[in-house]
């Protein structure tokens, strides 16, 4: 007979505030199968857990129902408590009295009655629970890191240095991400290339890291510890083994007028190109959309000049497969283009540029070799205006959030401009200066006080061009919203940081949830920032939400440490919530009718055919069998099976029907 203990938590005031926990505990005593029921202020605290353990011992409990917060929060905690006290963890269930009851209803009898119903529902379920033990599954100790920016680089190095294999894939021809495009980095103004390129080389030379650039994830199957990743290596039209990176082809290529992505379209590149001098790998790639041979079938000059005959025009895309234990998504972010702003000219004014473009102008390896020159006529701007919050914090434009990094890099841009153009005037239109990091506020104060950048607190309503000048119409809210007009030579918009436009497709390939801005969603905003709801898939960097380099590196190491924890054991224990096809005594053997229509319902191909043979080896019956290693416990086959021959542990038919019965039979 079931001996169930009910433990109602006040959760301080969170539940106790609107639910009469004592009354719930009292009425739980009368439920069928309940032998002990009590309530306590903090069930999840140490004394709370000790209370459960004592009750289990004293009343010889066989099942436990804890009425507290969401099971997504503390189910593991209470299941561990029970197993430590000798009750199988899976004989313990949680009733969600906080998120689904006390927090969302007013204080009163109805709320307390609902809490009682929820507890009765779970007591009904526990009566039908069976003890289960976790499934052991092998772990392949290789990590897949998607995205070769600073986030992906840091994660890969941390995992590889701990002695595990890493497969790092990057969509662009070279790793480095947006950080490689930066001139100098706040708050210390040290040159971005100098601190990044050593790490990039370390990744390329690391024995444990397999670097695959110009490649994207084609598909990911399987589950934690046993993923199978298929990676599409886009054709580079180069034989990487033969190519020595001498660069002859890039100098001879006749098509020289392609706006370069690395220089944010301010400088040009050839059709066969290396994105930037310190690119890793330092080998070229042929851009098929602009290469004359691919477009019109003529030219092949690079082939003629290549000393090692490394050019392969007929090279096809290649799909490679890797078995992967865990995945880190480090795909980073994009910045909005100037064409996103009607009031600033729909992007048709050449001298209205984005922050990234200014980085390229300020960068020594940039199109202007570090001199700040206007894209339209190459003149050095005497008067420059920076616009913070261009697109961010603007619900009308569909971007409600603050992009976090623009206040800092705008102050940096103004500072760099003043260092290079001493007599120049720099204005910054801002709403608030958000510089909350270490040495950050001091940095912005330096820009204002030492470099005399003129900060105007107000928004800019319009920018238009008039005889070579950019008229910036704004307001100064600190001077009674007086209209302000600046005749600038150049304007830099600190445009919003947004997710890549293919972020949603990648999320769907990984079965990871994403929010309304297409940033990936973490498992818990405070307690699990680097994990996702999908076991074995972790997040690092700005793909989760805009963040600066220090935070990205910290988050990358966080994700790496989660993986090292996973790889520290040879076997992974997995939730025993898997489906099982029933078995019976001969001659029935199983009620499965052998139609096998369930096989096409299972997303993990976990259902196999089992031939039941007699002693003479003849097949008597062929029935379905679930492979517990592959089954992920979605239960679709259970609800599909017409003869109810498959059931799922933890959410069995009996448990679910009993829950519905207990929930509705309360009067």
């Amino acid at each position, binding site marked *: 007979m079931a001996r169930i203990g009910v433990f109602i938590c006040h959760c301080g005031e969170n539940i106790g505030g609107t639910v009469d926990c004592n009354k719930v505990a009292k009425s739980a005593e009368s439920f069928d199968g309940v032998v002990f029921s009590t309530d306590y202020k903090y069930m999840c605290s140490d004394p709370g857990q000790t209370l459960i353990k004592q009750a289990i011992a004293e009343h010889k409990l066989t099942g436990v129902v804890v009425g507290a917060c969401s099971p997504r929060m503390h189910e593991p905690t209470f299941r561990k408590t029970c197993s430590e006290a000798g009750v199988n963890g899976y004989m313990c269930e949680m009733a969600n009295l906080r998120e689904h009851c006390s927090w969302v209803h007013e204080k009163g009898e109805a709320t307390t009655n609902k809490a009682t119903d929820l507890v009765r529902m779970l007591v009904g379920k526990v009566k039908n629970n069976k003890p289960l033990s976790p499934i052991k599954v092998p772990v392949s100790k290789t990590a897949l890191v998607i995205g070769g920016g600073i986030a992906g680089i840091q994660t890969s190095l941390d995992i590889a240095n701990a002695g595990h294999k890493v497969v790092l894939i990057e969509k662009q021809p070279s790793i480095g991400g947006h950080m490689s495009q930066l001139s100098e980095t706040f708050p210390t103004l040290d040159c971005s290339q100098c601190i990044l390129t050593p790490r990039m080389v370390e990744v390329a030379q690391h024995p444990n890291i397999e670097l695959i650039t110009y490649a994207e994830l084609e598909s990911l199957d399987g589950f934690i510890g046993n993923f199978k990743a298929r990676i599409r290596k886009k054709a580079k039209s180069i034989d990487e083994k033969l190519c020595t990176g001498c660069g002859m082809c890039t100098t001879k290529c006749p098509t020289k007028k392609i706006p370069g992505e690395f220089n944010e379209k301010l400088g040009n590149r050839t059709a066969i190109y290396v994105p930037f001098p310190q690119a890793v790998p330092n080998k070229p790639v042929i851009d098929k959309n602009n290469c004359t041979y691919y477009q019109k079938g003529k030219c092949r000059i690079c082939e003629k000049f290549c000393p090692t005959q490394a050019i392969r025009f007929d090279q096809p895309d290649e799909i490679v497969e890797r078995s992967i234990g865990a995945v880190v998504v480090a795909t980073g972010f994009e910045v909005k283009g100037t064409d996103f702003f009607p009031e600033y000219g729909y992007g048709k004014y050449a001298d209205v540029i984005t922050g990234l473009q200014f980085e390229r102008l300020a960068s020594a390896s940039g199109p202007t070799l570090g001199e700040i020159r206007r894209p339209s006529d190459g003149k050095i701007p005497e008067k420059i205006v920076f616009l913070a919050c261009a697109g961010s914090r603007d619900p009308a434009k569909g971007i409600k959030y603050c992009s976090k990094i623009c206040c800092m890099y705008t102050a940096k841009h103004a500072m760099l401009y003043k260092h290079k153009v001493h007599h120049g005037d720099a204005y910054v239109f801002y709403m608030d200066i958000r510089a909350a990091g270490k040495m950050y506020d001091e940095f912005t104060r330096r820009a204002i006080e030492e470099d005399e950048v003129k900060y105007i607190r107000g928004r800019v309503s319009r920018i238009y061009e008039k005889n070579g000048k950019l008229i910036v119409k704004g307001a100064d809210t600190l001077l009674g919203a007086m209209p302000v007009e600046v005749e600038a030579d150049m304007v830099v918009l600190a445009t919003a940081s947004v997710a890549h436009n293919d972020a949603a497709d990648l999320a769907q390939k990984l079965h990871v949830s994403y929010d309304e801005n297409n940033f990936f969603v973490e498992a818990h905003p405070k307690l699990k920032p680097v994990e996702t709801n999908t076991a074995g898939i972790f997040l690092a960097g700005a793909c989760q939400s805009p963040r600066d380099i220090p935070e990205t590196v910290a988050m990358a190491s966080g994700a790496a440490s989660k993986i090292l924890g996973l790889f520290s054991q040879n076997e992974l224990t997995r939730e025993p919530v898997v489906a099982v096809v029933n078995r019976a005594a001969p001659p*029935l053997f199983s*009620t499965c*009718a*052998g*139609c*096998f*229509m*369930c*096989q*096409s*319902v299972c997303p993990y191909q976990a259902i196999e055919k089992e031939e039941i043979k007699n002693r003479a080896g003849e*097949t008597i019956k*062929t029935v379905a069998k679930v492979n517990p290693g592959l089954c992920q416990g979605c239960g679709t086959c259970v609800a*599909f099976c*017409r*003869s*109810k*021959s498959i059931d799922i542990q933890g959410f069995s*038919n*009996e448990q679910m*029907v*009993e829950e519905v019965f207990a929930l509705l039979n309360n009067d």
Partner: protein
Amino acid sequence: MKRLHQIVSELLASGKAKLVIGYEKGTGEKRRPAFISDANEVERLVFDSQCSHNLSVYLTKPEYKHVTEIAVFATPQTMRAVVRLAGENQFQDKKLSFIVMDQDQNALLIEGAEVLANHLGKEKIALSSAQEELLAKFEAMSREERFAYWKEQLSNCVKCYACRAACPMCYCTRCTVEVNQPQWISVPSSLQGNFEYHIMRAMHMAGRCVDCGSCEAACPLGLPLNIITRRMIKDIEASLGPDIVSMDTKSVLNTFQPNDKENFIR
């Protein structure tokens, strides 16, 4: 009739068929199933337009589990049922042959369910005029009228499960109605139990029913069971595409299209 008997005798003689399931004269003009395994009883067999039973239902019965070589007289309905049953892996250890009547009414032997599959015509099974009329009347009913209609009809159902026994697609060794942990369908033939049973039966027929009408023919109380399945087939075709009878295990409820059309999920 000569050609028919000649084929059957040859099948029995050659051992291609240990058992022949056909029809014989019943009382008056009626026909009834006949099970012949000895050559000199072949004369009893007839096959004409009066034969309506869907003999494929016997192919999955436990009684004939051990018989592998079976020949069956196949009306269009039986053919459709056999093809779908083959698709549902029910004839793994069977060697079947079929006797069908071609357009000009003489017997034709077909060996194997696959061959039978491409012998299938595309045309649908016609409903009797009475059934058509009832179906039309049913379409016009409001929700309340339909509920009242079935309350009245299903109050007669005594859950004898004849419809389940007559339906070739109902071959489960243990049916869900016999599950008592948990008790999905309440045992006594109360109206609620009857509603639950008939709703479950309809759902189990989704994408599988071959519209042969055996269930309605078998019901001792003459309940209009064919309306339920016929209307479901029409609805499925309207929203999910044509109802094709084939050997494919992929059917309506175990596959999906990413853009299945519906207008009620918010």
